[in-house]
């Protein structure tokens, strides 16, 4: 076991993946000598050289489009979009091609690529550097969307993403990059994509979250236990597409109450889908409406006020108490 933060853990996974599989290439803006604006590609360029660690021109569609070509040719490109707020520039390449080639060619061709991007707020960045629009990718058939919440699962999931036969959007909660450290095993490990984790057992209420929102959610769960003697079960989705409905549904069947927490906008966000799944499978077990603690339907404000936009333990706490006393 080695203790490290999430940025380091993702960096470790990239080193490991490039060592074990020379089809893996890393590409993006400033991923080379600069080692990424968050240092996530540290040491890669000096170790693997500019043929496999590629500083690209400043063009997101170019990055994703050429990565698709490389993947079609048998490489395993891991491309980085510097901030998720700029991946709209390449969305047509993902929707029209990365997500469709296997289906279009009846399985003859596939696009085993990973698109990494730091997402979310909380680091006092300028406009367009704090977006959380993972729902757009969850709404795009043919893609998988993975969002880690800590160093250990970040490293394991990135390996799974790189090894996956299909394109994976890997969103990195940038506020968590250096927020805390965690033990990561020496031995390389993976985690199944499409499987959520119950990270806290409980019987009274189900809290569903992922990425950066997981921590305030867990914080709230602890306060609930201390102050209210309520045992909350907390689910960390880890993959938001394909969504692990079963784990959510099983928990709600038991607790009858749920709160969903994410920082992306509310309308048509992940919480909506989760509520729809709960409604379809365990409606009659519900003792209260499922509450949403999410970003609001406005662009995340400039950083002087971003904290008011983001879900925090207090918001989750109030939502839980309202749900419990419904």
């Amino acid at each position, binding site marked *: 076991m080695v203790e490290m933060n999430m940025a380091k853990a993702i960096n470790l996974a990239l080193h490991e993946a490039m060592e074990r599989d020379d089809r893996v290439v890393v590409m993006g803006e400033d991923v080379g000598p600069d080692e990424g604006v968050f240092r996530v590609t540290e040491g890669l360029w000096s170790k693997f050289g500019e043929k496999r660690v590629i500083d690209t021109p400043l063009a997101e569609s170019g990055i994703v489009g050429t990565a698709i070509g490389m993947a079609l040719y048998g490489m395993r490109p891991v491309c980085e979009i510097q901030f998720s707020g700029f991946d709209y520039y390449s969305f047509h390449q993902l929707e029209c091609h990365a997500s469709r080639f296997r289906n279009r*060619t009846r399985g003859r*061709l596939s696009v085993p690529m990973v698109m990494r991007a730091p997402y979310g707020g909380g680091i006092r960045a300028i406009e367009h550097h704090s977006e959380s629009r993972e729902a757009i990718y969850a709404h795009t058939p043919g893609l998988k969307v993975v969002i880690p919440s800590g160093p250990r699962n970040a490293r394991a999931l990135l390996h799974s993403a790189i090894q996956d036969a299909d394109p994976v959007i890997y969103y990195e909660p940038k506020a968590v990059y250096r927020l805390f450290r965690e033990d990561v095993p020496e031995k390389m490990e993976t985690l199944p994509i499409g499987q959520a984790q119950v990270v806290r057992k409980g019987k009274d209420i189900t809290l569903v979250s992922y990425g950066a929102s997981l921590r305030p959610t867990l914080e709230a769960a602890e306060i609930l236990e201390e102050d209210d003697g309520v045992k909350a079960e907390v689910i960390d989705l880890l993959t938001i597409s394909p969504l692990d409905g079963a784990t959510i549904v099983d928990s709600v069947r038991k607790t009858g109450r749920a709160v969903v927490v994410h920082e992306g906008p509310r309308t048509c966000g992940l919480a909506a889908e989760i509520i729809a799944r709960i409604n379809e499978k365990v409606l009659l077990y519900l003792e209260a409406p499922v509450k949403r603690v999410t970003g609001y339907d406005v662009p995340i404000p400039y950083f002087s006020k971003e904290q008011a936009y983001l879900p925090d333990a207090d918001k989750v706490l109030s939502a839980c108490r309202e749900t419990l006393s419904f």
Partner: protein
Amino acid sequence: MPRKPIELPRIELLSILDENAELDKALEPKIDPAGLKEMYRFMLLGRRADERMLLLQRQGRMGTFPQASGHEAISMGSVYTITKDDWHVPAYRELAGMLYRGWTLEQMFLYWNGFEEGARVPDGVNDLPVCVPIASQLLHATGIGMAMRIKNEKKVVMTYFGDGAASEGDTHEALNFASVFQAPVVFICLNNQYAISVPLSKQMRCETIAQRAIGYGIPGIRVDGNDVLAVYAAAKEAVERARNGGGPTLIECLTYRITPHTTADDPKRYRSDEECQLWMKRDPLLRFAKYLEKKGVLSEKERNEMEAELDATIKSAVQNAEQMAKSEELANPLNMFDYLYNDIPQSLQEQKDELAQHLAKKKSKSKVHVNPQKQPANVLPRA
């Protein structure tokens, strides 16, 4: 220092076999008779298949499709310069070239008749399928070329786009990436002077598309796109350069879309028939046929025999395709779930079961309610 002009590379125009089949001997490429015959054969096959598809479309036996007639010299002249190990990344008017690369007529018919199976790249063929989102395929071609460089392979990629496609941001990004990474990609621009109804003059204001190469520091040339020898010569030079690490080339092939944009388009709305008639006379097949005849490679008689034989091939391919379309494998709607991911996710399996149940119920029911299968013809899109 006063105002000082910088040195710029040359952009040339190239024509070898002109519209009267006059040959510029000095520039005539060396292609053996068998090769010349093969090139003509696939140009003719493409032409006849295209014409047959038009009839089928009029009979309601084929969907809307973009006609390829008139673009055969560009497709065959360029594709003939690469090997099976090289890659071919078409747009959607490369019918002749795709058939040459190993796509079956059946697939072409199935593709334009609404079956994904028509886009399944044949085993052993290093092609991408037809690409509908304009210009997006150029980045795939560039990525493939970048991968070839990374792997130190001496292969090349031949890719295609139109004069309208030249306006898309993806085209700029593809040319720049290919240039920066010296990817072995030959960019063939089919400048047929129209993007559906939009003429070149509304698409751009530069005299040639070839001169855009200057902005990427790569070689650029404009060739007569109805002159298969000129296309071949320019492509061959570019392929050799790319294969030897010389990076990408932009080849603009000037032609004219003598057909409607697609079977749903009506050119009378936006251009004169004279203009079209003028270009009809420049037909790449007529010109090439004369050349082959003069050269004693293919007599008129042989040409007619070839045509009869190809027509027979096409006829049976149509029958095969229509048979295949009825097969359980192709006809079953449930297959829409089977190829999206390597393994189908649980929630998607549930959706498949949902549809399966629905279809079963429907079969077993007398009173059926479905969306009108056929729409009035005029709702068909014209693009």
